[in-house]
């Protein structure tokens, strides 16, 4: 029970940290918003006049924008689907008693420790390369035409690479959740006549709901800003086929040296990220209560 006095003291004590954090976030945000209202191109030095909403209009009507929105959502949705389903299946597999369990678990976690740039390069050069990649060798061995993944299915390829990186995370969280399931519940269900499928569907899956929520929320935050994997593999192309919002902002401000439009894109990305976050919280956040 906090008294009036101790509560006031507590506020005073935490205020430096709060102020620091506020400044930390508000100053960059404020500068981004400020730049987004100027005509500010590094290729055309001079005074940077105030132009109002012009940058936003330019960014939002750019045909690349709607493609980027679609790609961002497809990337997030696709990776979430693959990692959650794959994580549950892998978790079920790793939950079985087997020889060498410890080592297998460490191996499964390994991709998570590989840096995004490195794993994307490995995938690009060692697996997906249409001439030297392992997939190309496999296709040739089977007598098929090698498939140029990054040129013909760029977004799918990136979804695959990013899923590979995030699958360990999902597996780890879901496996831990599975192990926390009371064994007696499963036995009770078995006695109640539930077969393996019904036990999974009625007992295990509801038990995992909270862990799935955590996985979805955390991954969404990171997946909205996937960048390195795109930069080192497709550079957003061909065309805009694999450009997401983060990459579009980068292309505007650093490839076209247009700080104003880039900043406007940044603000749009913040707004969209928050919309997605609110939407997610509404939809599945209630799983975190109780």
């Amino acid at each position, binding site marked *: 029970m906090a008294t009036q006095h101790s509560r006031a003291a507590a506020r005073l004590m935490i205020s430096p940290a709060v102020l620091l954090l506020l400044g930390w976030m508000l100053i960059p945000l404020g500068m981004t918003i400020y730049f987004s209202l100027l005509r500010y191109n590094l290729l055309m030095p001079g005074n940077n006049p105030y132009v109002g909403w012009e940058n936003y209009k330019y960014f939002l009507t750019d045909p690349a924008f709607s493609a980027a929105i679609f790609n961002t959502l497809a990337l997030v949705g696709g990776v979430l689907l693959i990692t959650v389903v794959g994580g549950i299946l892998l978790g079920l597999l790793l939950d079985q008693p087997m020889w060498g369990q410890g080592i297998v678990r460490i191996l499964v976690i390994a991709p998570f420790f590989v840096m995004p740039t490195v794993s994307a390069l490995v995938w690009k050069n060692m697996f997906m390369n249409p001439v030297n990649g392992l997939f190309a060798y496999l296709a040739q061995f089977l007598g098929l035409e090698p498939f140029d993944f990054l040129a013909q299915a760029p977004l799918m390829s990136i979804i695959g690479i990013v899923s590979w990186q995030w699958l360990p995370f999902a597996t780890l969280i879901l496996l831990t959740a599975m192990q926390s399931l009371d064994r007696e519940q499963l*036995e009770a269900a078995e006695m109640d006549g*539930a077969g393996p499928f019904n036990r999974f569907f009625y007992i295990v899956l509801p038990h995992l709901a909270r862990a799935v929520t955590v996985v979805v929320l955390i991954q969404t935050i990171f997946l909205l800003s996937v960048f390195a994997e795109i930069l080192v593999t497709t550079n957003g192309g061909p065309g805009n086929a694999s450009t997401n919002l983060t990459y579009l902002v980068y292309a505007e401000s650093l490839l076209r040296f247009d700080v104003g439009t880039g900043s406007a894109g940044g603000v749009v990305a913040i707004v969209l990220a928050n919309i997605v976050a609110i939407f997610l919280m509404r939809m599945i956040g209630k799983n975190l209560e109780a």
Partner: protein
Amino acid sequence: MGRITLDKVTKSFGDIEVIPPLDLTIDEGEFVVFVGPSGCGKSTLLRLIAGLEDVSSGQIRIDRQDATHLPPAKRGLAMVFQSYALYPHMSVRKNIAFPLKMAGMDKAEQDKRVNYAAEVLNLSDYIDRKPGQLSGGQRQRVAIGRAIVREPAAFLFDEPLSNLDAALRVNMRLEISELHAKLKTTMVYVTHDQVEAMTMADKIVVLQAGRIEQVGSPLELYRAPRNRFVAGFIGSPKMNFITGAAAEAFGVHEIGVRPEHLQPSTESGMWKGTVGVGEHLGSDTFLHVHDTGLAETITVRASGEMALRHGDTIWLTPEADKIHKFDAAGLRVE
């Protein structure tokens, strides 16, 4: 319906034999209690009957049919677990209906049975709540409700009352006994608490290290324990064991006398001692008597009114026909 026979059943976990060969018959409609100290294999035995563990060898028959290799759901038994094992995300109604739903019963019949169970167990008021919102006793009832809707051949209970407080435990004990009287279904009940065993059982099976020490009605075990272990396990407070000269006077290695079969006196008697701590229960007082030369302490039941203080001298006389005699191997001698 509901006769269970175990024929030379054994169970080993790896190299460790938890249940050595064991024979047991549980008759139809009987209330059988497995009792024994913690770790003696009671749960393992119950889980073998339920089919949650495979037997290492031997045969289990349920209603004369070989059930040794039947999966749990096919044995027609229902189990109430120590942790209750309710499904936390389902309401009480859904929990109770779950076995019926798995059996593919139609909705109307499900509702009928769930409502009947809820009525029998006084669950109707919180039928739409989740298990997390219930007290321990209520959860216990839901677990029992889930068991009775299936109308099983027998109920299996694994220490169902051990998570409840003392007062509730006494209540639930009565309720389960009532339920047995009403349903007349075979019940197999596991506990480490001999009071539960004595108060509820038609037949008690005393286990030690996986072996059956004795099978019998509560009074049979109380009156004629077959060996020293059963004698010490059944009855509260515990029987006094006496070796040495006092036992040899009766011509055996060891004798046992229950506290309630010792006559205390302030004037004269067979054995003399000093009064230690007295536990006053109102109707009775249990005195711990020291310095008798028989054993470290002798417990004796005195009437609640007996005025004896710490340090007083007391005389004890055993009732001649209530003395249990044991040989050096701990077996009963008549």
